[in-house]
């Protein structure tokens, strides 16, 4: 069951070279405290699975500017010049994945599925080198699941079972990334007793969460 640890303990658990799925969308709902701890410990050679590369000084952008990321599966780089520069310099290998496809591929891994069939990207460079499968008379791209070693996510509140609630649009990719971590670490604003979260508001059940880290007040 879930265990409370420090951000530094979380960072020390993540070995260089790990595949890490990180929640958040343009840094909204990003686990900033754990990201800062990774930067402090210089945990490098990471493969990052994220919706966007955020900003140089916010969200996973901080991992990029500190040269801790060597490859990424990501849907949007537009707000971070550092990642574009590193990509052009050949320092980081980028697989651009349409956002909906990225979410389904991550969810598939967490759900024990091998992949999904999506129409997104048909007739574009996204389909290159991939198998096209016809189902019910339509063509789809076979998109394999994306595996990750760790998921690092951000939630609003946790109870002592690891159940999580989220606040508004900072939910975004967090519950999906949580499903996919072999080990999932959730950064939260507040930890409450069992039974104190409304059971119908739990958008990520504790079964997906292994460790909790309290957000550092800024």
């Amino acid at each position, binding site marked *: 069951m879930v265990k409370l640890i420090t951000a530094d303990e979380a960072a020390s658990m993540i070995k260089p070279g790990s595949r890490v799925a990180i929640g958040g969308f343009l840094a909204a709902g990003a686990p900033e405290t754990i990201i800062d701890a990774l930067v402090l410990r210089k945990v490098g050679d990471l493969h990052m699975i994220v919706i966007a590369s955020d900003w140089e000084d916010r969200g996973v952008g901080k991992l990029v500017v500190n040269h801790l990321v060597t490859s990424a599966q990501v849907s949007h780089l537009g707000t971070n010049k550092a990642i574009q520069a590193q990509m052009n310099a050949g320092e980081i290998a980028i697989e*651009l994945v*349409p*956002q909906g496809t990225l979410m389904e591929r991550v969810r598939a891994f967490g759900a024990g599925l091998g992949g999904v069939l999506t129409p997104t990207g048909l007739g574009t460079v996204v389909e290159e080198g991939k198998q096209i499968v016809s189902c019910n008379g339509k063509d789809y791209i076979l998109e394999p699941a994306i595996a990750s070693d760790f998921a690092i996510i951000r939630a609003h509140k946790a109870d002592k079972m690891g159940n999580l609630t989220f606040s508004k649009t900072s939910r975004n990719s967090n519950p999906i990334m949580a499903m996919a971590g072999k080990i999932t670490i959730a950064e939260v604003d507040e930890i409450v007793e069992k039974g104190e979260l409304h059971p119908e508001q739990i958008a990520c059940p504790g079964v997906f969460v292994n460790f909790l880290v309290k957000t550092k007040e800024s």
Partner: protein
Amino acid sequence: MANDKRAIIGARIAKELKDGDYVNLGIGLPTEAANHIPPGVHVVFQSENGMLGVGPTPEAGKEDKDLVNAGGGHITALPGASYFDSATSFAIIRGGHIDITVLGALQVDQEGNLANWMIPGKMVPGMGGAMDLVTGAKKVIVAMEHCDKYGNPKVLKQCNLPLTAKGKVSLIITDMAVMELRSEGLVLCEIAEGLTVEEVVKATEADLVIPCVINRF
């Protein structure tokens, strides 16, 4: 783009939105449409980061860090708003549950192809949610300036930038014209006040089908 052009395009987009529609407006110019919804028409705006029921921009000082749109900008929530994760958000988009999406473009062509996510060797921001939106929405509208900043046409015979999706665009709204993809081709339906058909045709590389009656907007 000048504010009056933005307003003209925004108002014209807004005319496409029907009462009860679920709508996703892309970042930038398309969001201008939200300022021109006619009275009595109620549409629900989606933000693909995980929300339905997006309201207007908050007053200065009333921003909520947990309430942002797909461009990272602060928004508000209307009564009846709902929140969900990104997989559900794209299930809504890809599954055909969004009636209309309006997106900007680098290029669009007479086959309904759209290119709006990269210029090889120059700018690679990534497709974000655009490929899913164009693939999944029931109706795809492109809203953009008719020509690029050098005056070159953006409505082409065939896109030469990497595509966002193939053959999915059904309506193009620019500062000069409204063009619809129909079985007979790309039809010039409306032209802006003060322009002639010839001026629009000259600013367009695509073969335009010119009907007998062309309205003004």
